[in-house]
Structure formats: C-alpha cells, structure tokens
C-alpha cells in the first residue's frame, strides 16, 4: 500500500485526457489507487496504442459480468466490462482501462496487434463471458471443453453441479465428445504437408512425463525438429474464480492454496493482501515478518521442486531425490508451524492463523544452516555438468523486449537482464525492511532461468535469517473488526460482541464495496487477485492473475525450430504448474 501511493502522481491520465478529451473518459477510484479509466469501445484501440509505448506489458485482461452488481457509483452503465491492466516497468506504474459493453452487443476489437499475449486472455474472456473479440484469429474455448454450453463465469451460469440437471454420458454424447477430441491439423493452424515433406503430428500430453501436470502441446514435426507447436490448456481448470463468488472472504483462503500448489501460503499472501487493502486493515509487525518468513520458505520449496525436475528432465536421475529430501525437511518446519504441508491455508485476513510454536527458531536455524552446503553440492553435480550445459545453454532464448510483450514476469523475466522484482520495486507486506539482492542473468535461456532460481534460493535464505534474528514481539493478528476469524476474547463478556462474533463467523465479514488488486512476487512470477466487493460476504468477482498463464503462451515462440528434447528442457525451465495456468 505504501507503494500504491506513489502511483497516484502519474501523469498518464492527463496525457490521455489531452489526447482523447476528458468528456469521453470516466475515471474510477479503486482501492489499489491504480488509475482506472473507462474508455468507449470506439476509441479503445487508439487508447491502447497510445499507451503501448509507455506500458510495454499487458499485465492482465479479463471481463466482469456487471449485470447484478449493485454498488457501481460513478461507473458508466455496463453489462459486461472488459478490463485491461497495463504495467510499465520503466515507470514502475500501472494503468487500467475498462470498456463497457451491453449484453446485446458483446463485441470489442482484439488487442493482439498491440500486445501479442492478449490472445489467450481474450480467448478466456470469450470462453467465460461470451465477449466476442473482433479480429481474433482463434476465438474458441481455451479452458472449458469444446462441447461446453454457456459461459461459465456469467452470473446466470450455475456454480454447482447440483444446480444443473443430472449428467448423462449416453452413446450419443460419447460420440459427440469423441468427435470434439479428434485432432485436425487445420484447426490448429498447421499444414499436413508442404512441397518437400509430409509432417508428423505428435500429441505431447496431456499425459506425458515431462509436461508437469496436464498440459498438452500439439507438435508439427519434421523428423524430430519442431516446425510448429500449439499449446493447449484447460485440463486442470477447476473454476477457482467461480468459486470465489461463492465462498466467503475467509473460506476462500484454502482455495488459493491450490492455485500454485507448490507455492503454498504464497497464494494466501496475494489474496489476503488484496482483501486487506479493500478493508483497510493494517497488519501488525509480527504477522508481517511471519508471513514473509513463511512465503520465503515456500519460495525455497517451490524452487527446489523446480530445480530437481528441471535437472531430471534433461536426464539426470539423482538430484531430484536430494532436493526432495531437503524439501521434506522444509515441510517439517512448515508442518510444525502451520500443521499443514503443501496447502497450509495459514494466512488470515489481518494476520496469520496462529502464533509461531515454541522452538521454531531452532528448526528454522538448523535448516538455513544446512541448505547452503547442499546447494553447493547441487551446483557441482548439476549446474556445472557439461552435458546439462550443452542441453540448456542457448536453448529457448527470448529477449527482454519479447518477455515484456508476452507478459513474462518473475525469474523468466529477470533471466533476460531486467531486475524487476516487486519485493524491491514495490515492497509489500514488510519487504522494505529486508536486505537481499535480486539476481539477474543476461542469456535469457533455459540455463539462466535455472541458475537464477538457484540464486534466489540463497537470497530467500538470507531473508529468512533476517526474520529469524529480528522477529518482532506482539500480536500475530490485527485487531480489526473485519479480520477472520473475528477476535473472540470479549465475546463471552457482552452480548453485543457475541452477536458480532457470531455473525462474522457464521456469515463472514462484509467487506465495503470496492475494487482492486494487489501484486506480489510469487515464486513463479507476479501473482495478484483482482477482487470486487459488492458489499457482500463474498467477492462479486475474483480474478486471479497467475504468472504461469502467459508463460505457457509464448512456448511456440521459443521452441519452434528446435528438437523435442529442447522443448522438454524449455518446458522444464519455465517452472509452471497447471493449476496456476488453468485455475
């Protein structure tokens, strides 16, 4: 929130007024203080093109079904709103464009020509809301199966299976579903053959040992050389955003754990920061440091899994086991502190679930003293291995410019030489008090992406050591009426407190009407939850912007022309989990 204040002095708004006239544009006040401007559809493309030189990254693009939203004061009439969130790294600035659409005319021009990564986002918006992006080359379903009926994130689409008729898989339906699965190269924009050769099509995934989940990529091959590749996602889609509209603010926390399932509390972090921003909750110091310590432990855990599987995917068999041994030790600490392992759901709105247990210092200290020597081993064993270097150096290269165009954040971006790390650039949740470096690399290839994450583990250890040495005393949860679970100390003393406690437990706190998102530097890139409260006990709209989604989209860009083993190395070096892509 400290960082957000620096954004308000942005002059982009003024430039925009001068260029397009203030009467056309409507400004909306958001909880995150990101300048949010409503633009008429007709001038959208001009506005986007005007902003492109300053905002090189299309950070997020999504839609909102506004039809049942009550508290929309000051906003233009809209049935469906398309939101473009832009990020400028040179200016350390954000910008949000909104376009109002009426239900009878859900058409909007595609932004692919301005930012290529708009492609998947627009497909998702069409899939979920039925917004048609005119000029889009492949506007078909991306997350839901091709035979799905309706648009799932619309308010009139049921959220539960029990709200729908019984599901029957009769022979007709089987035939229809089978037919929908048939692979036709033309549908994927591929050719069967050209003048010289006939191509082979290989369906890599969704079940394949090296795609890290249920990720599918259709390959057009000439021998083992990849002519073209088309990633296909959606096999891990679980309707996390839809569930956000159903769960209370508090009970949604465990769902966030399962978005980036290697990130554990890192997901909670992005979510609770966003909610706290809307509710205006200040978190006490001890809770801040505890959160950072846990988040960094999970960053290490996630990077260890990455490290092991990356090395394994280029064929080295053993290291993954060593790294899982380390991760197991780490889970021992997580378990002692939170009671959970991969999905602790431990952060709370306003703090954390519990204070740290007795003896946590010695456990953490033992681990951070133990890991560096192990990392040195791995360095010798894997990263300095000549075969591994030959497999990964110079493979899957993209430049900083390409990374920004395609929405790549996190280690994948820093491997191109850009040192954009939110923990440094916009310290959130207390990171400004810590001393650590942001590793960068210049090659932008698979090797650099891996080496950079290894260095990040060491930096995380530094942060954790500082947490350990400087853990503040005090409460682990904020004394605020909207925190969850609500304070109970006085609930048995007087009826008034008892009623509030009862309501805030059974019903959940009501977050004031507001809208906003909060970016954090998750283990895989920038993660944020764009939340809209309509003065309810649950979110009116939960938009989860995950780093892995754009990362997968640009795979064809860097793998076409290489061989299958290179593609495997590239996939391994991206560090994604499918739940983080499909949500």
């Amino acid at each position, binding site marked *: 929130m400290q960082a957000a204040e620096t954004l308000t002095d942005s002059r982009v708004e003024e430039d925009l007024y001068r260029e397009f006239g203030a009467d056309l544009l409507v400004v909306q006040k958001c909880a995150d203080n990101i300048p949010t401007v409503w633009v008429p559809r007709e001038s959208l493309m001009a506005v986007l093109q005007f902003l492109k030189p300053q905002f090189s990254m299309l950070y997020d693009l999504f839609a909102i079904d506004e039809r049942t939203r009550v508290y929309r004061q000051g906003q233009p009439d809209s049935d469906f709103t398309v939101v473009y969130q832009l990020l400028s790294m040179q200016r350390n600035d954000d910008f949000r464009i909104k376009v109002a659409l009426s239900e009878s005319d859900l058409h909007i021009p595609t932004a692919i020509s301005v930012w290529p990564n708009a492609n998947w986002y627009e497909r998702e918006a069409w899939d979920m809301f039925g917004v048609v992006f005119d000029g889009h080359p492949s506007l078909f379903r991306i997350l839901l199966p091709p035979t799905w009926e309706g648009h799932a994130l619309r308010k009139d689409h049921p959220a539960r299976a029990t709200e729908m008729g019984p599901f029957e898989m009769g022979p007709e339906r089987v035939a229809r579903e089978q037919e929908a699965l048939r692979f036709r190269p033309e549908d994927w924009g591929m050719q069967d053959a050209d003048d010289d050769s006939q191509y*082979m099509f*290989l*369906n890599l995934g969704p079940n*394949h*040992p*090296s795609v890290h989940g249920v990720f599918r990529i259709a390959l057009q091959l000439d*021998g*083992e050389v990849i002519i073209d590749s088309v990633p296909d996602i959606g096999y891990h889609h679980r309707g996390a955003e839809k569930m956000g509209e159903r769960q209370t603010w508090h009970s949604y926390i465990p769902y966030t754990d399962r978005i980036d399932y290697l990130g554990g509390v890192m997901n909670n972090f992005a979510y609770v920061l966003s909610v706290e921003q809307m509710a205006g909750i200040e978190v006490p110091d001890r809770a801040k440091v505890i959160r950072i310590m846990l988040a960094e432990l999970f960053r290490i855990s996630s990077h260890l899994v990455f490290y092991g599987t990356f*090395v*394994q*995917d*280029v*064929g*080295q*068999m*053993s290291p993954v*086991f*060593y790294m899982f*041994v380390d991760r197991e030790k780490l889970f021992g600490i997580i378990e002692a502190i939170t009671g959970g392992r991969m999905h602790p759901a431990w952060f709370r709105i306003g703090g954390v679930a519990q204070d740290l247990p007795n003896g946590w210092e010695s456990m953490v200290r033992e681990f951070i003293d133990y890991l560096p020597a192990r990392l040195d081993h791995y360095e010798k*064993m*894997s990263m300095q*291995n000549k*075969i*591994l270097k*030959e*497999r990964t150096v110079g493979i899957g290269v993209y430049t900083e410019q390409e990374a920004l165009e395609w929405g790549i954040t996190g280690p994948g971006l820093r491997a191109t030489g850009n040192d954009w790390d939110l923990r440094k650039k916009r310290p959130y949740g207390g990171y400004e008090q810590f001393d650590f470096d942001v590793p960068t690399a210049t090659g932008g290839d698979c090797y650099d992406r891996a080496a950079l994450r290894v260095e990040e583990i060491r930096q995380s250890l530094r942060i954790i050591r500082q947490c350990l040495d400087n853990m503040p005393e005090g409460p682990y949860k904020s004394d605020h009426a909207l925190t969850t679970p609500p304070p109970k100390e006085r609930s048995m003393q007087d009826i008034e407190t008892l009623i509030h406690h009862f309501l805030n437990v059974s019903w959940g706190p009501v977050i004031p009407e507001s809208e906003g998102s909060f970016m954090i530097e998750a283990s895989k890139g920038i993660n944020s939850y764009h939340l809209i409260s309509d003065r309810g006990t649950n979110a009116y709209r939960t938009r989860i912007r995950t780093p892995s989604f754009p990362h997968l989209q640009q795979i064809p860009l860097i793998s076409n022309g290489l*061989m*299958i*083993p*290179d593609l*495997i190395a590239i996939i391994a070096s991206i560090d994604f989990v499918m739940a983080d892509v499909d949500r």
Partner: protein
Amino acid sequence: MAAELKPVLLALAILLGGVGGAAVLTWWERRLLGFWQDRYGPNRLGPFGIGQVVADMIKLLTKDDWVPPFADRVVFIFAPTAIVVAMMMGFAVVPFAPDVVIIDVNIGLLFFLGMTSLAVYSVLLGGLASNNKYALLGGLRSAAQMVSYEVFMGLSLMGIVMMTGSFSLVDIVAAQEDLWFCFSQVLGLLVFVVAGIAESHRLPFDLPEAEHELTAGFHTEYGGMKFAMFMLGEYLGLMLISCMIVTLFFGGWMGPAYIDHWLPPIVWFGLKVFFVINFFVLLRAAIPRPRYDQLMSLGWKIMLPITLINLVLTGWVLLSMEA
C-alpha cells in the same frame, strides 16, 4: 560322455544364470540407486527386499498379454525375443574361467560384436511394429545411434586384436598374463565403455527410451511379459558388456599379479564383473542425457578419431617393438 555333456550343461547353467542374474540385477540396481539417492528402494519383501524379484516376476507373468490392435502383430511379438536371444548367444563365447567357456571359437570377438549388433533389431522392430509415434521416434533414434556407435565399438577392440594376434577371447585373456589391456589400451577401453553403454541403451545413452521426451520410447506400447523381455534383454546386455570389458581389458579370470592365487579364477571374474556393473549403475545415477544430435557428434567427432588414433598408435608401437 561327460566331456561331451559339459558344454550342454554349461550352456544351461549360463542360460539360467543369465536370466536369474538379470532378475537379481533389477533388484540390485534399484537398491544401489536408492542407496545413492537417499532413499530405500525395494526393501519390504524378504531380506533386504530381495523378494521383490519374485514379486515382479509374478506380476509380469500374470499380466494380460495384450497386443495393440493397430500394431503389426507378428513383428510386435518377435521384437522383444530378438534382444534376449542375441544377448544370450553373446554369452556363448565369454570365458568365465580357463575351462569354463561354452565354445572357444577363433572368431569369438567377432561373434560377440555380431550378436550385440543383432540386438538393435529388437529395438528398431519394436519401435516400428508398435505403430505409435513415440515408439517410432525411439526406433529411429536407436537406428541412428547404432549406425554411429557400432563402427567404433568394433574398431576400438582392434588394438587388442593386434596385440594378441587372435580373435579368440581365451587367447585375449591369456595375452594379459603380464599386463592387462586396460593399461596398454586406455583409449580403447574408454571408447569401448562409451560404446557399450550406447549399445545397452542405458542412461546417459538411453535415447531410444528417453522417458522424459518419448514417454517410454520404443517400448511405449509394450506391457507384461513382452515388456519384461526388453528389460531382460537390457540387463543381459549390461552383464554381457561388463563381462566383455573384464575379459578384454581387465585380465578376465586372472586376479591382480601377487594375489591371483587367493581366489579361484571364476570368483575373480565374477568380482570384476560385479564392479563394472556397479560402475554402470553409478553412471546411470549421475549423468544427464545428451541430445540426440549431440550424441551423434560425440560419436563421429570425438570417439571415432580417438579410436583411429589408438589404432595407429598401437600399430606403430607393435611394429617398432618388432624392429
């Protein structure tokens, strides 16, 4: 009568020993890998988990013997047997001890090379007959790998043949009475070990299988006993290559000079083979997999020149010693 029966009995013993050895080797390798990788490996059935071997056999034998409807049935069934037969035949010329060899033919070395070359058909045909794209890619890789590695596998041994003056493996062992060839043929040993791993399709040269790239490569469509045959062939190949390395470079059945009489010849042989096998397992645990074209260029650009240099050097030394 007894003398005539001996090769037959020996052949039977080696046949059973080979199959049994391969089965135990699956367990031993898993235990060893587990030991190196900070985990247990199979340790539940019987002492040290040795019963796992039996359990695996029961499982593989009772699995549905399924041939995919889209596969070329005859070739599909024939492919896994080829590798087992070829590898088994290879053992016929291995001298385990001075008089423990099934046939001591004067072309023993060539016979061994021929048999291991045949084994590649198994992978190739298995890959083609499966009518599966991953299997096809595995088969193609194995063909390319064979073409490049067969060449210098044979050539790497010619230095030994020049020094011994015979292709008979018994003669070759006898010729190492004074000095094992691992000292005088260092380059030959180096190349042969690399080619041997490539020949037995084990990590780091398991490209036809490469589970991270081609799911299971050439045997993607195989299951049950036919899959087990491929595995049997791989482990027999591992044992055969280890036997050959010991025979050709480490003095076969002979112990190191002064302690030769401590143990009977066959035990020396067994010990050495055991060490070589463990070395191969260690390699598997430690080394990443090069890319297909990198493997080829390693073969043609590094291994082949080394072999040729070795050949010329050996010839030059031999001729100058004669003169």
